């Protein structure tokens, strides 16, 4: 990176931190925990979006489309449906009861053990996954710039902790607003440059034809397979349950919209999220599609993690030269077929050329797989993952973007990390304080004591995430599993909330037992590896509802109908 890029990056990052600290002045416990319930809908919206979008969303999203096409978009089809249910059912209750964490509601509806059990599931999954979302961008930056990964993890955490520790919910909401505007502008800038840099003034239409010829524009896939991660069915059904659980019951999201100024602002923030999410993801994935066409028409590297490629070349020169030569040859052949397609006006009836392209693409993939196998077999020597998805977008940024824009794009890695991690740490801290610590105290805490403990737990979870991220550097094989960790817990958590809202007869003991049984069921299904991870959310939540009803009928005492009316 040039000095100009460095200056732009550091100035932007410091600006955000100073702004966050400035917004942290004169805070009391209520403001620290829930932003005084004063946020307008647009701040709620940007908070929700910035919390969900981690650094990996922006660097891995284009890479995902590059490698697997647009079908990842289907993952978001269930989200607007979930926004409707949350806005209609969850928000009015949360706001009327003035709960400060999602699990406080369970105490009102059921009992304290259910609140604590659900809180534990949340702290477990969110605590570990926050560490992972700290590790994921750090490893990419460490590889690209040859920086020390521990140093990057510490830098990302400390600067973000500064304003999260001081200002809590309010500082997070206001910095997220700025962060997200910068991130979206930077992504738009990147898209503009990719289009400008398409070789030989290739129009976007031709770029889309090339991607389509390689089955990359597969936005809807209708073939059903339980193990398939992304198709229209798992997207709508599994995606709905995942979004319902994540936005409706995960304290990192609930904490964002209960800070809204009343039901109206919280609802508008959520519904707007339902409107903008799919188009936004479409545009992020489209960057990957344009990149695919850009590299197809110039030169696709054999492997986008250049450091790993150099190491393979250094240690296995013969294999590397062979694989590299085959890759170059196949790339040239593909380019010539694209020229044929262009001359024929991209006629879809000309099936033979398309078949040739698919054949060459498969050969190129097989060649790359051989290269990846080499990395896997000598992982201790090469010291890198065989997955280069996260490096695709940044490879382009580093190689092709003009001075000034590179700094801004690398900035978004830090900003997106801060946006999602600060909200996660804050939600972990408030949940630990309110759902555990204060439940064990006989005497209520004063405002000042709550603020002090809230800050202490923010610091604690920040350090905890840092330790998890440090461990992740030593246990690379576990990363894939931990990425899907959320889905192991989300289903049962959502099930407990669904029972709370809709199955009024079911009491605390029945739902707690149902939660435990369902958690075991989800873990068994996960280890048996029979379904794609999105389905785990459906299985977990339905299991709690059904077993909860069953347990109540079998073992519950017949009693007066609780409680939801009273709560309303």
């Amino acid at each position, binding site marked *: 990176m040039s000095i100009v890029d460095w200056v732009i990056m550091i100035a932007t990052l410091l600006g955000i931190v100073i702004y966050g600290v400035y917004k942290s002045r004169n805070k009391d416990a209520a403001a620290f925990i829930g932003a005084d319930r004063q946020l307008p809908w647009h701040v709620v919206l940007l908070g929700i979006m910035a919390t969900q979008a981690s650094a990996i969303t922006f660097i891995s999203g284009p890479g995902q489309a590059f490698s697997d096409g*647009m079908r990842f*978009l*289907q993952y978001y*089809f269930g989200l*607007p*449906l979930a*926004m*409707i249910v949350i*806005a*209609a059912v969850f928000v009015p209750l949360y706001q009327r009861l003035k709960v400060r964490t999602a699990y406080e509601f369970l105490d009102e509806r059921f009992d304290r053990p259910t609140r604590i059990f659900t809180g534990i599931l949340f702290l477990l999954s969110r605590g570990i996954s926050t560490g992972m979302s700290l590790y994921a961008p750090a490893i990419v930056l460490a590889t690209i710039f040859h920086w020390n990964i521990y140093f990057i993890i510490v830098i990302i955490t400390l600067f973000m902790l500064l304003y999260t520790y001081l200002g809590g919910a309010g500082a997070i909401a206001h910095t997220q607003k700025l962060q997200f505007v910068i991130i979206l502008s930077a992504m738009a800038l990147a898209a503009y440059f990719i289009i400008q840099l398409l070789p030989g003034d290739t129009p976007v239409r031709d770029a*889309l*034809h090339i*991607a*389509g*010829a390689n*089955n*990359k*524009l*597969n*936005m*809807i896939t209708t073939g059903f397979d339980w193990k398939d991660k992304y198709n*229209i069915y798992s997207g709508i059904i599994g995606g709905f349950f995942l979004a319902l659980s994540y936005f409706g019951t995960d304290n990192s999201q609930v904490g964002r919209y209960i800070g809204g100024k009343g039901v109206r602002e919280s*609802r508008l923030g959520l*519904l707007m999220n*339902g*409107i903008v999410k*799919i*188009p936004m993801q479409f545009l992020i994935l489209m960057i990957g599609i344009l990149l695919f066409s850009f590299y197809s028409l110039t030169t696709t590297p054999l492997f986008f993690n250049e450091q790993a490629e150099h190491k393979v070349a250094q240690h296995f020169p013969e294999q590397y030269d062979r694989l590299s030569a085959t890759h170059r040859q196949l790339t040239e052949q593909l380019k010539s077929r694209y020229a044929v397609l262009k001359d024929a006006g991209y006629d*879809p009836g000309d*099936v033979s050329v*398309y*078949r040739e392209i*698919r054949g060459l693409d498969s050969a190129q993939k097989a060649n790359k797989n051989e290269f990846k196998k080499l990395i896997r077999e000598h992982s201790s020597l090469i010291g890198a993952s065989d997955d280069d998805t996260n490096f695709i977008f940044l490879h382009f940024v580093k190689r092709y973007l003009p001075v000034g824009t590179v700094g801004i794009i690398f900035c978004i890695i830090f900003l997106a990390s801060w946006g999602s991690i600060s909200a996660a740490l804050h939600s972990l801290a408030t949940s630990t304080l309110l759902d555990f610590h204060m439940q064990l105290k006989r005497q209520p805490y004063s405002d000042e004591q709550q603020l002090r403990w809230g800050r202490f737990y923010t610091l604690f979870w920040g350090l905890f995430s840092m330790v998890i991220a440090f461990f992740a550097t030593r246990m690379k094989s576990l990363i894939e599993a931990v990425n899907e960790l959320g889905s192991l817990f989300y289903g049962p958590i959502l099930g407990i909330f669904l029972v709370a809202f809709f199955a009024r007869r079911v009491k605390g003991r029945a739902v707690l037992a149902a939660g435990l049984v369902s958690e075991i069921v989800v873990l068994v299904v996960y280890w048996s590896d029979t379904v794609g991870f999105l389905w785990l959310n459906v299985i977990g939540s339905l299991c709690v509802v059904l077993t909860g009803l069953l347990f109540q009928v079998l073992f519950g005492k017949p009693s007066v109908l609780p409680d939801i009316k009273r709560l309303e």
Partner: protein
Amino acid sequence: MEHKNTERIRWKIWYVALLIWLIVMIICSFLFTLKWNVAL
């Protein structure tokens, strides 16, 4: 009371609008796939 009902109807309109928006998004995605993606 009347104000409450108007408010309720207003939110219902929002929910239906979002539902229609989702359906439009899915149909557009489907048409986009048909137009640009070459299935062999």
